[in-house]
């Protein structure tokens, strides 16, 4: 049965148009993909649509999947993040156009400018599996954590983050890069799930 196979085998089966292998990958990874879509989009219906899009794209493009470029889980997470951010940016552009046109935008107030807590990411993180990620995030300063959250999970451009935080663009850009590289260093430390 497909359920017991490893991801690489399942991806090979999907490339051979085995629908049960796709279903097995879905059962294994959909909760993570859905959580990520939901976290970025903050909208259940949209997150469901992107979830289906991600696995549909996996089905359609599995023949082009190259295992040496990353695991199926990595591929799915990248795809989910990318598609969710695309959708989020599109929504924001539309809301911006609506606002420019002076039209009502009930959705904009729901999603807009974000009265989100700066430590929303930290609140979202839980579970033993992700202890290292949480610990690494805690090593960042509050300002770094906020900037990374706005950029990495909320899909804001550097200019948007600068405007929201009231800080120069260059400062924001440098802070995000520095924070991400610090996270990289922390997560790659041997004994902390490091990969080298």
């Amino acid at each position, binding site marked *: 049965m497909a359920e017991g196979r490893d991801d690489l085998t399942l991806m090979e089966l999907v490339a051979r148009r085995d*629908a049960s292998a796709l279903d097995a990958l879905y059962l294994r990874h959909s909760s993570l993909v859905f959580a990520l879509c939901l976290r970025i989009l903050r909208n259940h219906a949209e997150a*469901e649509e992107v979830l289906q899009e991600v696995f549909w794209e996996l089905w359609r493009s599995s023949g082009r999947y190259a295992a040496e470029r990353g695991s199926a889980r990595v591929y799915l997470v990248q795809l989910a993040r990318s598609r969710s951010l695309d959708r989020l940016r599109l929504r924001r552009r539309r809301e911006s156009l609506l606002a420019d046109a002076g039209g009502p935008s009930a959705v904009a107030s729901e999603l807009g400018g974000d009265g989100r807590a700066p430590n929303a990411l930290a609140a979202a993180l839980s579970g033993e599996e992700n202890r290292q990620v949480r610990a690494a995030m805690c090593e960042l300063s509050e300002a770094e954590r906020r900037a990374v959250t706005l950029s*990495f999970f909320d899909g804001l451009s550097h200019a948007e983050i600068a405007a929201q935080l009231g800080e120069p663009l260059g400062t924001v850009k440098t802070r995000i890069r520095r924070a991400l590289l610090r996270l*990289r260093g922390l997560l790659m430390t041997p004994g902390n799930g490091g990969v080298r």
Partner: protein
Amino acid sequence: MTCEERRDALFLLAADELDGAERDELRAHLAEGCPQCLGALAEAQALVARLASGIEPVTAPESVRRALAARVALETRLAEPQALDAATRRARGGWARPALAAGIAALLAGGATVLVTQIRVRSAERDARTRQAALDVIGSPYMRAIELSGPALGFQGHGHLYWDYHSGGCYLRATAMRAPDAGKVYVLWFTDADGAPLRAGVVEVSSDGEAQLLTEMPREIDVTGEVAVTAEADPHAERPTADAAVLHGELQLLHF
């Protein structure tokens, strides 16, 4: 710049935090196939995914799994021309039926080979166009799937309505459908912003209970309205007359 010096930049590229000339330079270098940097990029992508996967998992709705499975099954089915052509011909009660086949034989005897060949070619071309159009709809990145189900009591047809909101193409596919009563056909309906019905076409049902309709979504639809299939005596009726729908769903297409 050495490949070792590119490691930080590769991580930022994986995190989508690199832009302008830096990104272009790095992509150009990767395009040359540098094994060291490609390996480092894969490592960076894994790390970025790990950051993203720090989120607590959320159980995905079963309806998404069903919709995905139906879409995959449908694509597989549509990619098999023989199976669909046979189903389509059954649905149409087409030229393969014995009586018509006898007529064709008579035509052949009369020397009308060219005519029969043209009919078959046109039919095959029509089937291929239908199949391709349906594949275009369900494969579109702008596709939205709406789940359809039969009444709680009575027979249980179920399926999906696939709508490509970019092209306007709309494809209904359902299974476990009972053929309409004699003298009636199944008609697909939407509603407009005022709740008034909009007729979208006649749904064909094959002898094995598969229903399909390829049509255009009416421009005036309410994207948060309803979709229904009813049995009607008049395929051109302006509004449904049946007491109940044989298939029903809710659009709820707020985000597109």
